């Protein structure tokens, strides 16, 4: 459904007298099959929005190519526009219009006739549980209600693909769960959904497949389960005082059962081991013998954050 090769974009920005070039996206290859929820996971500034805006024909790539729903992004952007929907990260509704007006206008901008546009708007309002507020000005909506209108705007013309840039950022847990259901419903209707997120749990629970992005590059791609399976073994997290962390690192770094070791900013270590059950007693013995104060010890299966950590050397939680 979406196929990109070597997609690149850099921005020149001026800070005082200097001009700096930010390589926002540096060569992204993606293959997204039809009917999937595809997730783009990455920290702030990773290049997610820039990639999406290129795919949505809003900015021209500096290099590379892409085919979207069968249309060539560079040669036929008009056709791409007809086949996709796009919901921006920063919102897209006008304070003084009502939700219904926005939906009708959006449909009509896609060339849909007035009566049909009104019919679709009514249907979308129902589907997104917005009937109650339909004729109120957008500025009176809550954040969650407004986000639902925006998503409805993105799919009013029944596109083959919809790009949702951080659809759940700023929503409370309950609204988020609702939004997930709505996104799943889009997939059930046969739409391909491309979302960006920096929530690990969202990528894990909602997406069929994800690409992890960092510094403008895709560092890993696959189903959440596959990605986690790539990191074999368990993760043991040892909570220590910041002052004791350095010493503990020296103690444990050489141990043959520790595959990898990461320092935690808040103090403590993250140890990648083959088998947690046998590693924990040995870790405890070492730490105890050195007389270090242990605050906590946890065992868990690798998470997407661990995937990110192994690929980039940083934790997504920290960045």
């Amino acid at each position, binding site marked *: 459904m979406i196929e990109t090769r070597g997609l690149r974009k850099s921005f020149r920005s001026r800070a005082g007298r200097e001009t700096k070039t930010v390589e926002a996206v540096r060569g992204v290859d993606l293959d997204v099959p039809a009917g999937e929820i595809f997730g783009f996971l990455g920290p702030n500034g990773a290049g997610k929005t820039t990639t999406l*805006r290129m795919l949505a*024909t809003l900015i021209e790539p500096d290099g590379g190519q892409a085919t979207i729903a069968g249309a060539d992004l560079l040669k036929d952007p008009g056709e791409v526009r007809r086949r996709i929907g796009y919901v*921006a990260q920063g*919102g897209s*509704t006008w304070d003084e219009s009502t939700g219904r*007006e926005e939906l009708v*206008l959006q449909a009509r*901008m896609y060339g849909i006739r007035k009566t049909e546009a009104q019919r679709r708007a009514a249907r979308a309002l129902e589907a997104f549980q917005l009937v109650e507020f339909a004729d109120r000005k957008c500025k009176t909506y809550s954040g969650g209600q407004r986000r639902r209108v925006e998503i409805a705007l993105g799919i009013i013309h029944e596109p083959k693909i919809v790009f949702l840039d951080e659809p759940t950022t700023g929503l409370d847990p309950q609204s988020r769960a609702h939004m997930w259901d709505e996104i799943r419903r889009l997939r059930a209707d046969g739409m391909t959904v491309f979302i960006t997120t920096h929530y690990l749990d969202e990528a894990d629970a909602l997406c069929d497949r994800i690409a992890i992005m960092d510094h403008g590059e895709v560092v890993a791609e696959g189903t959440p389960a596959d990605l986690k399976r790539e990191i074999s073994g368990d993760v043991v997290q040892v909570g220590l005082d910041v002052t004791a962390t350095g010493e503990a690192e020296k103690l444990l770094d050489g141990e043959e059962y520790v595959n990898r070791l990461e320092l935690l900013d808040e103090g403590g270590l993250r140890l990648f081991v083959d088998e947690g059950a046998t590693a924990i007693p040995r870790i405890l013995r070492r730490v105890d013998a050195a007389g270090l104060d242990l605050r906590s010890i946890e065992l868990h299966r690798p998470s997407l954050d661990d995937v990110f950590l192994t690929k980039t050397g940083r934790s997504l939680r920290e960045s």
Partner: protein
Amino acid sequence: MKLARDTWLIFQRQLNLLLRNPVWVFVGVFQPVMYLLLFAPLLKPALGAPTQAEAYKIFVPGLLVLLAIFGGLFQGFGLIAELRAGVIERSRVTPVSRLALLLGRSLRDVVSLMTQAVIITLLALLFDLRVFIGDLLLAYLMLALIALMTSAVSYGVALKVKSEDALAPLMNTVAQPVLLLSGILLPLAFAPGWLQGVAKWNPFSWAVDGTRALFNGDIGDDRVWQGLTIIAILAAAGVYWAARQFARSVR
């Protein structure tokens, strides 16, 4: 035709939003009426016009051109608000015509200006201004072209600078010499030679002269077709340039 349909769509939306804000409509009419009531009476003695009606013949066309220029030039602020709200980006992912995104907005500005112009003309009629309907319609065409040009340019610049902080001083800097060098408030006939020479390079000066000639009933005056031609060419160029900004603006 797609362009006409899309333009109509955007125009309707923009007009609806404008009408929803009655304060704006009130302000738009109130200001020029104040000029007419409080400033114009000074003119008869100042211009040495034989009658009040003669003074209005000189002043009203100038006032209307002034409104057309300023009405257009400051429309960019509304667009920056739309840009910030993400409305423009949302429009740009749809296949809607880019030219229509501009024209729909600019035509709304033209219509709102024409409404002001008609109100002012009607009021001036009460003060014994007399003008032939044919001449008046041609003068309105001139005003419409001016408003089309200034609003298009304002939108184009807004898309380029993307911030009110940059747009405000820019538009003021443009507006001030344009105003002073066009003989809008007082005819340049009173100006020293060098000033008249500089004003020749100001297209709005031609527009003002043409409009005055029309209000004076001199439809055959060369200044009429010259003014109309100059403004029509500039309006076309402004629209073309601004529509390109709609097609390629980045965030």
